[in-house]
């Protein structure tokens, strides 16, 4: 038996081309230096992906990784990361999901699954403890996620098997396709479902019957209880997020004056969002709570629409991002239609955020005359016309008509449409976030410098902007002001470090870190040093880890990710927010007239790079920094091959480009 504690101790390597399955042992070097999940994955991607490859070619490497706390008694530890080179952005593809798949992989005895090559026919991978098979998936090819799960569950004859699969969108190489888990959960960002589709891999079916061993059972139990008690006693978590779920953020964001409406052309005021607010959702459509594995926060829900044109629609989640992007951002305030869209995207296996971003940009460009009926094949695009949006979603998944262009993702669509469309396209490194969010400098810098493109889940700033936290950490409350540049250059790295650690350990960020200080685990909520977390990791793995050790891991992972995207052509200029941020002020509400300046971003980037020890001109991690992090081989490679061809995005489908 393996002597690993916390980690399962094994890595599974699947070569789809040669149909070869190899089990390797986890090395101490990998485990201690990269912890797990996101850390393991980026190490694999760096080692095995050559820069400049087409993400949809068999050369791409797809990794599923879980962290050392996944499947232990520590609450909220159920996340896994899917990583590959992204077909949506052409840089780092990395996506994270909860549910039950991650723990199940751990129960089966694996820390990571690495998939290379391309299967000659539709295939699914079946992991049943140490019995691993590649099975024919021809009969489920062309089927959507719920049906696929149903057929495969019947086939393997085990209701407890957990499935990560793609729907029709992934099969059709839609760039914004995601990996769906447990029917409703999505590893959504950066088009990982597309990579699965390109490899002819329909699903990963996992069943594990072993336990996860930990080093100090009693100690871990004690810490896990402290952590859980804190979560269960937190009024906001239990009664707000654990009650209304993430749709509550619609209310919060509109109160901040930052909820974009009709693309990035306007904002919604608090009195205008009644029909999509958290309360409305809860009152009219809520059926039952839904939690991920061992989660006391339970931010997801099951819903049912009882009347109206969408009566009978049942499903789950319908998160803030979906309501915002497929709703408000498209000018649509009809909540039942948004929930229907949510279901459709889940079934087809598409990222609701990217779908909403693509459709809203299309509407904006149509209204501006840049997209015409020639491109849309006669479809008129109007704000809030949910009938058309639903129709477009079907078309995206099947890559039909105008859907073929939308399926490229909003940034790639803009690239096809030309300079003016690119200017209006709000993105950083190919991923969408509202341009208004960049006017909040803490959030903005975090979105701008994230390694997978503009992204709220790579470093949340809300808690860090609490004056009491800033006082405790930096002895200054000025830093807490989001509209001043002061201190953002070191506040943001802290947020990003916390989130990197959460991803490496397998801890959920949404449940805790958005509302409280990131990932404390035991100890009090204002543990700015992270002692509780270090103690928890030590108790689980048996490896003595100090808070500084964990910080080093986070820095190592983050710098390696940075090096990965540098190799794909990212430089300082790609860390700048989109054009609109500096040219379109917030039109209404309490922040009316607010606009960000390029000078402010230049100043913050300087400070940020200095803090990170990255080159000020290029944003490349310096040799001394990389060597400190035991990444000498990375420094060598960057030095040898730089400069790299500038990043533009992934290679486009030849038939449209």
């Amino acid at each position, binding site marked *: 038996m393996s002597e690993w504690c916390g980690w399962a101790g094994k890595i599974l390597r699947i070569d789809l081309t040669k149909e070869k399955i190899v089990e390797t042992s986890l090395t101490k070097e990998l485990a201690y230096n990269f912890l797990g999940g996101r850390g393991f994955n980026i190490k694999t991607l760096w080692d095995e992906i050559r820069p400049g490859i087409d993400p949809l070619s068999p050369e791409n490497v797809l990794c599923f990784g879980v962290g050392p706390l996944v499947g232990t008694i520590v609450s909220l530890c159920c996340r896994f990361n899917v990583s590959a080179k992204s077909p949506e952005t052409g840089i780092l593809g990395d996506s994270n999901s909860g549910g039950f798949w991650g723990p199940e992989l751990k129960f089966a005895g694996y820390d990571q699954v690495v998939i290379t090559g391309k299967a000659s026919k539709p295939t699914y991978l079946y992991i049943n403890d140490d019995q691993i098979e590649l099975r024919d998936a021809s009969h489920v090819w062309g089927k959507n996620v719920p049906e696929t799960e149903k057929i495969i569950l019947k086939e393997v004859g085990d209701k407890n098997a957990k499935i990560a699969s793609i729907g029709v969108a992934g099969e059709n190489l839609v760039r914004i396709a995601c990996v769906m888990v447990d029917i409703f959960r999505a590893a959504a960002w950066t088009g990982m479902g597309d990579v699965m589709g390109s490899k002819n891999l329909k699903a990963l079916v996992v069943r594990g*019957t072993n336990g996860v061993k930990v080093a100090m059972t009693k100690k871990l139990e004690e810490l896990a209880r402290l952590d859980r008690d804190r979560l269960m006693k937190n009024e906001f978590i239990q009664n707000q997020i654990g009650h209304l779920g993430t749709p509550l953020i619609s209310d919060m964001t509109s109160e901040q004056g930052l909820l974009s409406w009709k693309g990035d052309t306007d904002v919604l005021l608090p009195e205008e969002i009644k029909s999509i607010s958290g309360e409305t959702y809860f009152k009219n459509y809520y059926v039952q709570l839904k939690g991920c594995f061992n989660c006391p926060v339970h931010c997801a829900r099951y819903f049912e629409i009882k009347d109206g044109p969408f009566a009978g629609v*049942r499903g789950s989640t319908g998160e803030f991002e979906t309501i915002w992007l497929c709703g408000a951002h498209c000018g649509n305030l009809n909540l039942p239609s948004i929930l229907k869209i949510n279901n459709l995207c889940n079934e087809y296996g598409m990222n609701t955020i990217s779908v909403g971003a693509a459709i809203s940009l299309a509407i904006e460009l149509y209204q501006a005359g840049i997209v015409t009926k020639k491109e849309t094949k006669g479809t008129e695009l109007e704000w809030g016309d949910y009938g058309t949006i639903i129709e477009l979603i079907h078309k995206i998944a099947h890559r039909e008509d105008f859907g073929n262009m939308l399926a490229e993702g909003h940034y790639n669509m803009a690239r096809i449409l030309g300079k003016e469309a690119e200017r209006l396209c709000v993105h950083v490194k190919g991923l969408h976030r509202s341009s208004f969010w960049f006017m909040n400098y803490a959030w903005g810098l975090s979105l701008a410098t994230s390694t997978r493109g503009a992204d709220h889940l790579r470093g949340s700033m809300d808690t860090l902007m609490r004056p009491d936290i800033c006082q405790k950490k930096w002895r200054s409350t000025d830093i807490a002001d989001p509209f001043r540049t002061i201190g953002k250059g070191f506040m943001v790295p802290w947020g990003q470090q916390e989130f990197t650690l959460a991803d490496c350990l397998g801890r959920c960020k949404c449940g805790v870190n958005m509302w409280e200080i990131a990932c404390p685990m035991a100890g009090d909520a204002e543990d700015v040093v992270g002692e509780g977390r270090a103690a928890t990791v030590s108790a689980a793995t048996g490896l003595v880890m100090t808070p500084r050790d964990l910080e080093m891991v986070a820095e190592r992972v983050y710098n390696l990710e940075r090096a990965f995207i540098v190799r794909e052509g990212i430089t300082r200029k790609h860390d700048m927010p989109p054009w609109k941020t500096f040219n379109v002020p917030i039109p209404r509400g309490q922040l009316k007239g607010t606009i960000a300046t390029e000078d402010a971003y230049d100043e913050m980037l300087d400070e940020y790079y200095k803090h990170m020890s990255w080159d000020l001109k290029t944003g490349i991690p310096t040799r001394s920094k990389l060597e400190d992090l035991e990444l000498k081989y990375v420094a060598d490679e960057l030095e040898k091959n730089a400069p790299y061809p500038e990043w533009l995005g992934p290679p486009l489908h030849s038939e449209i480009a």
Partner: protein
Amino acid sequence: VSTRSVISVVRGRTGAGKETDCMRCMGCEAICSFTKEGEVNLGLSRIKIEPNELEWMEGKSSKIVTHRICHQCPGVSPCMKVCPVPYAIIRHSELGTVLIDDSKCTRCQLCIKACPFKAIWYDKRRDEVIKCDLCGGDPQCVKWCSVNVLHLEKIRSEPYFNE
């Protein structure tokens, strides 16, 4: 010999927190196996939460989750009734919990088939028949449940005898 007429049992609440409030996080399964086996291993949990999501979505089921919890059935429980070995399944003298005496159990597994709540399991690894023993009166699943769906209830029963 003692005579008692109250049985303790872990139940889905009725009223304030209903069984339909269960969010199926499987935390109860995790803490149960952790308490009993020292590791999280859902297959060895003495409580089971089963999803019916697909059936529910298609409108074929009104329940999203089903609970498999031992009801500590009052009187001569179905598992006691089928057990071929005298006193292999007994009641706890204080709590009224139905317990399996491992030293007497022959692993015939008739009780598993007889249980109307499917709440008895066979642990292959250790060759043991396992079921909920209420953690000796302090059920960990109840403590761990964050939505207060599980609770410890005392139910009246016919007087029962115990050795």
